[in-house]
């Protein structure tokens, strides 16, 4: 997955032997990246389908279980990711302007924000483990915050989906941060110029995509049952 970015090698002549021109090469990279994102859409799509079906079937359990997620942390993470998308977009802009130091700055900012997201996520997860809200043998059916009665047993399904969806999203974040580190190294080495900055662009696309996934996860997981409170 990490190799998704069809990037040119570090070698100075960025034009690979089998392309006619840099434009053609960039066009191919960009198309390849977008197609890769299509596969990512369907990859997450499988889980969104499962979510949609069970959410309809076990609406009550899902709404109750959703209220147990920490909305403040979820909203904070949403903001963090949106800011990181902005800094990523600025990084792409900086690379196109050939402003290497600015590029480095924005890459570091994006990485920091991504790491912040993951740290917050870690605390959310830890909290779930403490509360026995992790599906599996140690799962304890939680109380409904609205009615203070036990939730239906199927609330476990909500947490199954919650961990699968956010876990996979977090994995994408980790890969994204890895890609950013790689970019930073190349940027500091001065690989990117006004003429050649495809890798920044490609990683940018990936990063924004991961942000988009979260934009959907946030309301579907955190906001689902708030009106019942």
């Amino acid at each position, binding site marked *: 997955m990490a190799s998704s970015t069809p990037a040119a090698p570090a070698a100075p002549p960025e034009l690979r032997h089998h392309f006619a021109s840099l434009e053609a090469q960039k066009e191919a990279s960009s198309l390849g990246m977008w197609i890769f994102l299509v596969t990512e859409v369907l990859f997450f799509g499988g889980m969104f389908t499962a979510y949609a079906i069970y959410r309809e*079937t*076990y*609406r*009550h*359990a899902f709404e109750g279980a959703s209220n147990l997620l920490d909305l403040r942390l979820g909203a904070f993470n949403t903001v963090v990711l949106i800011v990181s998308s902005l800094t990523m977009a600025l990084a792409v802009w900086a690379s196109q302007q050939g402003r290497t130091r600015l590029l480095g700055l924005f890459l570091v900012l994006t990485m920091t924000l991504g790491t912040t997201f993951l740290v917050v996520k870690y605390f959310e997860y830890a909290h779930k483990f403490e509360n026995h809200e992790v599906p599996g043998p140690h799962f304890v059916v939680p109380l409904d915050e609205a009615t203070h*009665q*036990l939730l*239906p*047993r*199927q609330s476990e399904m909500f947490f199954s989906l919650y961990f699968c969806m956010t876990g996979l999203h977090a994995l994408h974040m980790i890969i994204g941060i890895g890609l950013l580190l790689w970019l930073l190294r190349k940027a500091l080495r001065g690989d990117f110029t006004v003429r050649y900055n495809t890798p920044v662009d490609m990683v940018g696309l990936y990063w924004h995509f991961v942000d988009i996934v979260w934009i959907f996860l946030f309301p579907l997981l955190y906001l689902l049952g708030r009106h019942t409170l």
Partner: protein
Amino acid sequence: MHFFPEEASTFARHVDSLYLFLIAVTAFFSLMIGVLVVVFAIKYRRKSADEVATEVHESGVLEIVWTVIPFGIVMIMFFWGARVFFQITRPPQNAIDVYVTAKQWMWKLQHADGHREMNELHVPIGQPVRLTMASEDVIHSFYVPAFRFKRDVVPGRFSVAWFEATKPGKYHLFCAEYCGTRHSNMIGWVYVMTPADYQAWLAGGAPGETLAASGAKRFVENACNTCHGDQPGARGPSLTGLFGRRVQLSNGQTIVADEGYIRESIVNPQAKLVAGYPAIMPTFQGLISEEGLLQLVAYIKSLSAPPPAGAAAVPAAAPSQTPPAPERKVSRP
């Protein structure tokens, strides 16, 4: 050599006719393509190394023709197939009930009057039989080739199917969905009997308590009666006369209370809440065995049975009593 299994149900003839039609189409087109390919290949074989083929202009008309004709044919197949499918998927009202529990690797079949069988099923001819099936572990599939019907038994829900046998005999019962190590041993027999023989079979053997009676016990064991006990001001809706009725749900929809609905209301009570009642029933997911669920359903069904006997209906088409047949089958675990 046989090319068809025995035709022993009302579906069999329809399915076989459909099959023959499809075979005819298959044979016609396979032969047509085969003959054309061979004829062209021979007739237009290359005679000299530098031979040039004759130009044949593409023909839009031809393309349309061979798009539209197959379209027409497959639509005939579709509608015909759908008709047969509807017949197979919709049980008639006058069916007798048989409850099936599938588990690795056996079939447990229970008649409403309490007869229990293992890997064997006795049914009369000329009487629709509705199977309400549940699986205790993995997916199984109830398949009787002679009846041309099968139905997956999916865990976590009831699978309902029906058939009407037409020809006395002994037929294979297979599990058709791969279910683990001894999948191919999960087979049994269906004995189709004349009504007289069937009555004799029913009369013989000692039926345990009826399924509905077992269900009534479970009803009390699980304390269902505290809320659904028909007492005035009960916390749950009355179940008497519920089965088969339209129910008004709290979300405004109405729904027919069938086996699936009753099962769902036990394991996922909040899914389809009856209008006017609070969402307070706990889920029994994982707390009641599949067999127990079937018994509860049989019990609730019996609460709506037309005769007030309490027990589930015994086939109404019972002719006059006949002496027990000599070779009656008694089920053995």
